[in-house]
């Protein structure tokens, strides 16, 4: 009998050998290190991942617009207490959205993904011959840009932030905050470096990107990726934020000069505000944008300005989360012949381009309204507008601002008029002027000092594009005449508090002094 037991044990042991296989299961839900960084498809997935994370960071809780438009901006909120708090700059308020927006983890996900990419992508080069040197160079340039952009975004929101340029896989070390000035220097040099490598467009045999990029034609990539002018365009913004206005002019000149090569141009008011116009899909004119492409099933219920501002009668939602109060509208759009918003002396509006239902209790800010694929169907609130970070108008007005700040008024007025030519070209009924060249030029008497006119123009032009708050900061830094705002600038009140969760995790972090 003992023999039997012994025999059984032997067989059981044999079984063990055959079962080793059963214990090695490759998950179908995640990819491990052994199966990654091997092929071209891996580098593409990782590259698109960095883009995807950037889009997620901006879209999360509608952060891009809440940071840029809601905070101390033109908007008011009827019933959302969290938005009301942010509008009042009450950023310690005890609401989930406020707390989540004060957390920078999602931006560091971009940075970590970028760091890993930069560290590991040579493995793909070594393993897959299809992955060319040029392909890798262009990929690296995009990733370096996106990492720099994430830092730029964070510096604008939190000021000093921890500066990390390696993935430190597995041994995550807490780091204190680094000076924002130093980080911005880094941002600038990184963007400049990528600008030199990037092509004007993809898959169109650009000298710097010959052939089909990742074997896809230009229609796949148009507007979706970082291009040479994206880098120079964002450099313009970075320089403006740093107050380096001569650099602003330098970079802006590159963008405006080469715009044709990149397939870019200015956008008409009509196209800008069309449902399936400028904000729909991906297009070359998007200097930097993160798309929610309807055809790719990216359309989303949240992560767009529409989910904050649209309501009846544009979509079937009773009350918008936020809206621009009537008196603000009248104050901002007080100029006539403006194609974006047009009200005549009798109080009748002739254009619904920017605001619908002006006479209702809550005028609906309807500049951007890409429902589904740009349909007029109000019944399903899914949106596919891209997060447009910058466009040619932005660069032109930044250059105007730089000229104005440097005292080159004529050049500033020229640039301002370039934009005014596009917008102030309607009659007092909102109809386009017969002659395309007819428009209302800047007039110092009517429009005030050119710098003010430029910033007012930015306020109108980029309303709902997440820029207003930063514009206010730059404006006040130049003007230095608003004591209250200057106090915010000087005490760090223009930054967001750092989420308490982050401070609990990382004892090296110190809360922004204004929010202590």
């Amino acid at each position: 009998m003992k023999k039997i037991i012994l025999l059984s044990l032997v067989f059981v042991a044999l079984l063990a050998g055959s079962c080793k296989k059963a214990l090695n299961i490759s998950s179908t839900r995640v990819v491990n290190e052994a199966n990654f960084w091997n092929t071209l498809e891996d580098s593409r997935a990782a590259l698109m991942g960095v883009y995807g994370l950037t889009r997620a960071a901006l879209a999360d809780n509608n952060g891009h617009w809440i940071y840029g438009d809601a905070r101390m901006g033109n908007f008011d909120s009827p019933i959302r207490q969290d938005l009301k708090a942010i509008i009042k700059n009450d950023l310690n308020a005890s609401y989930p959205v406020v707390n989540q927006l004060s957390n920078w983890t999602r931006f560091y996900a971009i940075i970590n993904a970028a760091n890993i990419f930069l560290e590991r992508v040579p493995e793909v080069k070594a393993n897959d011959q299809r992955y060319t040197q040029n392909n890798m160079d262009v990929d690296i340039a995009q990733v370096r840009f996106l990492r720099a952009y994430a830092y730029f975004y964070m510096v604008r929101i939190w000021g000093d932030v921890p500066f990390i340029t390696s993935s430190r896989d597995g041994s995550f070390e807490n780091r204190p905050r680094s000076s924002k000035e130093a980080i911005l220097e880094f941002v600038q040099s990184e963007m400049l470096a990528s600008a030199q490598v990037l092509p004007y467009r993809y898959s169109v045999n650009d000298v710097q990107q010959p052939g089909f990029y990742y074997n896809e034609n230009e229609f796949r990539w148009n507007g979706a990726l970082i291009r040479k002018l994206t880098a120079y365009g964002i450099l313009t913004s970075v320089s403006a934020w740093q107050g380096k206005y001569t650099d602003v002019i330098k970079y802006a000149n590159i963008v405006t000069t080469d715009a044709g090569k990149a397939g870019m141009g200015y956008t008409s008011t009509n196209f800008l505000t069309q449902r399936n116009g400028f904000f729909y899909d991906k297009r070359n004119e998007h200097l930097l944008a993160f798309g929610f492409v309807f055809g790719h099933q990216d359309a989303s219920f949240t992560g767009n300005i529409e989910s904050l501002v649209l309501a009846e009668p544009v979509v079937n939602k009773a009350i918008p989360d936020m809206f621009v109060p009537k008196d603000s509208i009248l104050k901002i759009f007080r100029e006539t012949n403006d194609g974006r918003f047009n009200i005549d002396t009798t109080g009748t509006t002739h254009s619904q381009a920017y605001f619908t239902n002006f006479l209702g209790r809550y005028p609906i800010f309807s500049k951007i309204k890409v429902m589904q694929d740009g349909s007029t169907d109000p019944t399903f609130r899914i949106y596919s507008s891209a997060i447009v970070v910058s466009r040619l108008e932005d660069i032109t007005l930044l250059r105007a601002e730089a000229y104005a700040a440097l005292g080159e008024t004529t050049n500033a007025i020229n640039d301002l008029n370039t934009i005014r030519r596009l917008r102030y070209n309607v009659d007092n009924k909102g109809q386009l002027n017969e002659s395309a060249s007819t428009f209302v030029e800047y007039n110092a008497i009517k429009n005030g000092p050119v710098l003010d006119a430029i910033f007012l123009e930015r306020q109108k032009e980029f309303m709902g594009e997440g820029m207003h708050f930063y514009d206010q900061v730059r404006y006040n830094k130049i003007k230095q005449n608003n004591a209250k705002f200057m106090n915010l600038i000087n005490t760090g009140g223009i930054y967001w508090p750092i989420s308490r969760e982050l401070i609990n995790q990382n004892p090296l972090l110190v809360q922004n002094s204004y929010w202590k």
Partner: protein
Amino acid sequence: MRIIATITFLGVLCTTTYSFGNTARSACVSNHFSLVRSFHQADTAKTDTAKMDTATVGIKQAAKAISKKLESKGSNLDPKKLSIFPAISLQQYLKGEAAGLYATEPSSEPGTVQNMFIHGTSQPLLSQREVFQTQPLVILDGVPLIGEHPFAFDIQQFKFDRIGPAINPLTNINMANIKSVQVLTGLNATAIYGPKGANGVILLTTNDPTSKRRITFDSYVGVATPQSVTTVNGKFENDFRRQFYNKYTANGVYGDNDVYPLYLSDSLNNDYYGKSDWSDKYYGSQIQYGINASISGGTDRANFRFSVGNLRSGGIADNTKADRYDTRFIINMKPVQWLTFSAMVNANRLQRDRNRNVRDRLATVNYIPDLSSPIAPNKDKYAQYLGQFNKGFDNNRSNIVEGYGKVGLDFGKFKFVTTLGLDYFEGYRDIFYARTLLQTTNFASNYFGYNQRATVDNIATYDYDLNEDSKFNFSVGNTIQYDTYRYSYAYAYKGSNDFIKLNLLQSDPNRGDYLEPFVYRRELVYKFLDRTKNNQLSFYGKADYSYKDKYNFSALLRADASSNQQPTSRWFYSPVISAGWDMKKEFFANDDTFSELNLRASVGRMGRYENFDNYAQGPQYTAFIGFTGNLIAPGYNGIATLTRPYSSGSAGYGLEWAYTDQANLGLDASFLNDRVHASIDGYYKHDKNMLLGIPSAAEYGYTSVIKNGMAIRNTGVDLVLSGDIMPKTNTVSWTSSINVNYNQNKLTALPGGLNQIVLGDRQLKVGESVDSYWLLTNQGIYNTDAEVPSNGAGGKMAYNGITLKAGDPKWLDVNGDNAITDADRTLQGHALPVVSGGWKNDFGYKNWTLSLNFYYNLGRDLINQEMANRFDFVNREGLNSINSVREITFWEKRGDYSKYPIYNPWSSVSPYQVNQDIFLENASFIKLRTVSVGYDLTSMFKKKSPNVERFYVYGSVNNVFTLTNYTGQDPELAGFTGYDTGYGMQIPRTYTIGVKMDF
């Protein structure tokens, strides 16, 4: 000999593995409550016969299993008694029946998921993930049942119910088929079932076939009735809100751009201000019934048993119900004396009609329409709403099948059993919601998913008697388990009309758009496929030794490997030893003081099974690039992405097995001529080295870093005391039995030596229990700004940097730093009961029996979130989110409004935030769960027909009353987090009559 070897070999080859035969199983069973013994009152004769019958064929236990002596003689119940309760799920049957087993029932909606915990929780219950990892293992006739894997929650924005039919996997137990129910709590009993049984094991054994022809029939029919509720209308809500406006606003509007809800603005609006009679449509009595029949028979070489059953469980609200059709077939064959084949199939079909809650529907639809006005409390309006459902469908069904094939070899002292077991649990859900339900957007979805476990199980046992005094049982065994979980799911919005209710695909292969949807837009059709697999391989050896039947020892050593562990630490080795001392034989051998006195002890270690396959992969990449409100972003620019798992946490190399260290000490005693039985077990259960995502590495993009090192200790006592207060020999008899579990939960370590961490709104602190709430202590209200104390630096006290004002809550500054922050939150209360159990009384008079069963929880607390939501209406309604949903039950008056101060609801300190002690309530209760009266007609029928073995009729009332101080609904009706959202459907009072016949 050769034959045995060949069979072993064959068994191995066929990858059939083997179950531990019953031999080994009972060998270590201790500390369990066999629910078999006590039906003797009404039913002794029957049970005995059954035993005799089965003695002929079947794979049966070793006669002299030593570790039988190590068993606890705990509370004894009978499946037949349990079957009096009109339950559909195992959890409902077992609630309050066994000391140490805590079964929840967060909603009485029939067929919905319920959870069980044996000896407290070994994980902080933060999400379904932890709940899944803490559930006991249920074994039906040696087939370990699989649960529904929570991986599907990953694609769900709103995680109330899992996608699919969300049917309770343990609705497959027909108590009429069950011979015994054993709740195994300690390692000494559960070790043999391996790491999946580390949370305890519930062992179900079905009725054996009989050689003599036997037919059983039982049936009950009953009615579930709702308890009356108080309904309110818009006036009530308006008056409630006016208090705040009157107190905190000058002209009834808070801010220029504020708006008063439209549905309350017009007091002439009859929909909202008129009759509130919705409850007629919502609540209603429902029929319940069960009918079971079985036939068994055969010869002494082959026999079978076949049974069928049908059960309807009706919910008393929202016209919910669940139906089960079940059938079971078992066959035993014994071609030669030493060889037995046995095969069993238990098949169940479940269908359920779900609730029509707005929240659950929107969570499925994953789209939030405008929610500014709730459903009107008016019956006609509500009927209109319900009518919309008739234009579509919501079909939920599951098939649950268990089966095994066993081969047993019996050579007297040597036995060998090999088992191939399978548990398969699939679910379907098909939905079409018409346009009228969702602001003219219709919705279709289809789900199919399955959970499957195949088990191969071998065991060999050998009994060896060294001499008269020293006896041994040896066993060795191995098990392989293959678990597969998979689902495919698709949903689509905006179909072209309400008549085509399916997401049709282009079927012509020659077309360019072959297999593209054409009723729904391609861009609005979302498809998901997911699968996860894991395998477990185990070996063990066990030796039992008995000396003079007085001293009993058992030692077990096992090795377990899981594909869900990293290759470098795939195996886990665990020992368990137990010992017993029969003190009756030692001290009272010739004394009648004790009829039984047995001391038991055990100590051991066991691995805890990891159910998620991602940790084994080490550093990894995922396709997730979603964000708040959009978890399912499919890629970027139409291209799939792979990035680190930033949102689910970084998993590195070097993750190890978690394990549990357990010890227990028990004593069983019977005295006073066997009239009093007592069983007391002290236990120590320390789950260690568990994985936890520690919030860190935020500057590397991660929400957390997954690490080993969490340890949670549960210690406590199980006590079962039963006594024949008036013995059965009297005309009037009374047996009373009480079971008590006292459990203390404590977090003893966090990964990396941390002392405390915060996860969401919970704090985990070493030395405190993990089921506590992390709350601010509320001390009233600041009526004026002047009342707010100074912050010691010239200003006023602030809450997280916001200066407190009149109308804000007076929160206790626990750490005395003159500021209210998270540091002033303290851990309070327990979401799981400290003391729980049941108390049963059986009275007998002639052929009459009367039973009273009580169920109680003590030391359990709930957060009354429903009331917090009511008071926090400003924020709940401001954000048009899933939290702004108001169900029809919004118009039911629940809770005590006078308990809460009138704060300024617009204040940015969130005065009505749920995590403060005004919303914490003691949810201890005792309820009379069952009153049943039965009459045994057996003897009467026997006179007419000698074939009749049993004829028993009964009537029962369930959920008769509940005694509690809790002000919300029934204190049972809260989910595992302990937050009572008000979504629990009230547990109905049911009246049933039934009959049980065996002949």
